[in-house]
């Protein structure tokens, strides 16, 4: 089968469209056996870029196909996977996504609502599950104000949509006009600029009180100001460090204002609290079915040009998910 293949950990330029054997057996991290998907669209994201250089925590042996997410149609499903041939699905696969066929992990696979395209499906699982769980851990409730850092990014835009669906008010932090447009398109209540006096603006927007929650996939220098932006009793969810640097916090910052800071990693939590991932999947599925999820697609490439996908990520060009149309929309199963 054809796939976007890495034969060495040489970064984006090492990815080439080529041939790989069809996947056998089950995904090594699958719970429930073999789930083979005919890929219609694949999502390529930041972990794929890191993985192309050998810089990510989980790795398959070389050669492998890149692409952490897929949307498509189930071709084979072992009993116990909860899926059947013909099901339209969206899944996190970690790798192997930009290929004609991919192995999915049943525990990280959801049914794709009829109203959602495969391209949207390829942008669904990773960001929306992460954002939903981050909001859940921050106990975000109706009527609360939520500050979203990196609001035009994958987790950020997902957080904007889900927070709005929860009845919360969102304040997006972005760094450019184009990102501001993206955040507004995805329903941001207010938008502030990371290079401006955003902390003061957030205070003004909240009547001096601050926000009840911060969703932070960025980290870096602005972390302390994120803590300052919280109201008394406020909660900050640490999702990642796309800004590059890992913040340090002096613990007394939390004390008097009763702040809490939580690290958020859904899949790891599931090992200790089984059912975590299932709860997240069901929530995502329900929001998708209810039409509350639109997904933001920043670049869309035909399969032939998919080698460009990692380079687009490397140049930080795309606002939204980079999606590869493995089977052009409308084409049936091969």
């Amino acid at each position, binding site marked *: 089968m054809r796939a976007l293949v890495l034969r060495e950990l040489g970064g984006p330029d090492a990815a080439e469209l080529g041939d790989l054997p069809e996947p056998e057996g089950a995904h090594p991290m699958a719970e429930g056996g073999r789930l083979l998907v005919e890929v219609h669209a694949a999502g390529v994201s930041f972990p794929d870029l890191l993985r192309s250089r050998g810089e990510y925590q989980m790795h398959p042996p070389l050669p492998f196909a890149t692409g952490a997410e897929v949307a498509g149609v189930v071709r084979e499903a072992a009993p116990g996977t909860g899926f059947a041939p013909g099901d339209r699905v969206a899944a996190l696969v970690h790798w192997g996504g930009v290929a004609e066929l991919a192995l999915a992990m049943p525990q990280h696979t959801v049914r794709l609502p009829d109203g959602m395209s495969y391209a949207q499906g390829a942008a669904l699982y990773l960001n929306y599950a992460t954002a939903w769980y981050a909001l859940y851990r921050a106990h975000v409730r109706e009527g609360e104000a939520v500050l979203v850092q990196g609001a035009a990014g994958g987790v950020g835009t997902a957080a904007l949509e889900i927070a709005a669906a929860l009845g919360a008010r969102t304040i997006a932090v972005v760094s450019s006009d184009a990102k501001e447009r993206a955040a507004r398109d995805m329903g941001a209540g207010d938008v502030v600029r990371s290079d401006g006096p955003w902390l003061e603006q957030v205070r003004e927007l909240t009547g001096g009180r601050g926000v009840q929650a911060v969703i932070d996939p960025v980290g870096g220098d602005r972390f302390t100001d994120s803590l300052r932006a919280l109201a008394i*009793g406020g909660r900050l969810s640490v999702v990642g*460090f796309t800004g590059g640097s890992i913040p340090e916090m*002096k613990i*007394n910052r939390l*004390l*008097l204002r*009763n702040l809490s800071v939580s*690290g958020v990693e859904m899949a790891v939590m599931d090992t*200790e609290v089984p059912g975590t991932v299932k709860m997240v999947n069901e929530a995502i599925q329900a929001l998708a079915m209810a039409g509350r999820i639109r997904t933001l697609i920043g670049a869309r490439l035909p399969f032939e040009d998919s080698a460009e996908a990692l380079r687009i990520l490397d140049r930080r060009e795309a606002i939204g998910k980079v999606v590869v149309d493995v089977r052009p929309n409308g084409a049936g199963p091969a």
Partner: protein
Amino acid sequence: MRALVVESLEGPDAVRLADVAEPEGPHPRADGQRVLVEVHAAGIAFPDLLQTRGAYQISTPPPFVTGGEIAGVVLEADAGSGFAPGDRVAGMSIWGAAAERALAIPKFTVKLPDAMDFAAGAALWLNYSTAWFAIERAAVQEGEAVLVHGAAGGVGTAALDVLRGRGARSIAVVSSDEKERVAREMGADEVVRSTGPWKDEVRELTGGNGVQVVLDPVGGDRFTDSLRSLDQGGRLVVIGFAGGSIPTVKVNRLLLGNLTVLGIGMDPFDRRFPGTVRRIGDEVAAAAAAGQLRPYIGHRLAFEDGAEGLRILDRREALGNIVVDVRPDGAGAA
């Protein structure tokens, strides 16, 4: 009237028993409501030590009367304060308690259960409300394991006492044989030594998983090991920094463990969510009235020796609570 007076901000040695003017008007933090108490016993705790050096977040200029907690009998009470002359009460006064008469702060004051003597009353409000609030904010569930730092101290003994009524398993961290004895007396299920390989012992005691909750009134160098002692999804409550130094944490330590670090400060929380302090005080008083709480009084000092209580705290030798007998029990009004 006689009182233990902080004459200048030079620590415990600048505290003298002296004659001072009778308290006038309401306590400055009492929302205008005057409640004057004939003090029988005064509690001396860590914030009092900090105040003798001007190092606490709430302060009043010297000369001032030390003593953050009072137990005694109401002499005068404004209508609407919720108290009446003759009421036996206990509560936090922030300062001013170690005197023949003191001003109470109604929201930080509870009626003293009949079965509790004044000395126990002077050890009730601050440490038990703090421990109660910390346990509530950490959402400790029955069956969970809770690591308590400074377990022989005021907040530590109160936390052990509260936890034993809740079906949680407590692991006390202490620094001496004497403190171990106190922790065991207060119901610690396990005791480890801060000077030994306590992190490894905690892992062993929890089947390798770690504890679900850490209550930390100490701070300092052991903070990182406290985080390492937490189970997936674990919560660490920052209560204070009796160890002296304020820890710094790299935020990625929280990420993969799904850890939460939260600060507690009752007074600011109450300003934002009025009624919190009243509710907690009432719950503590109800538990005390039901005979569920037994404050540990490790040091009981005559009025004229009261400054020694501050020195005990300064040497980090305090066992449980320190109480000054302003009026020996049973004595009536002066």
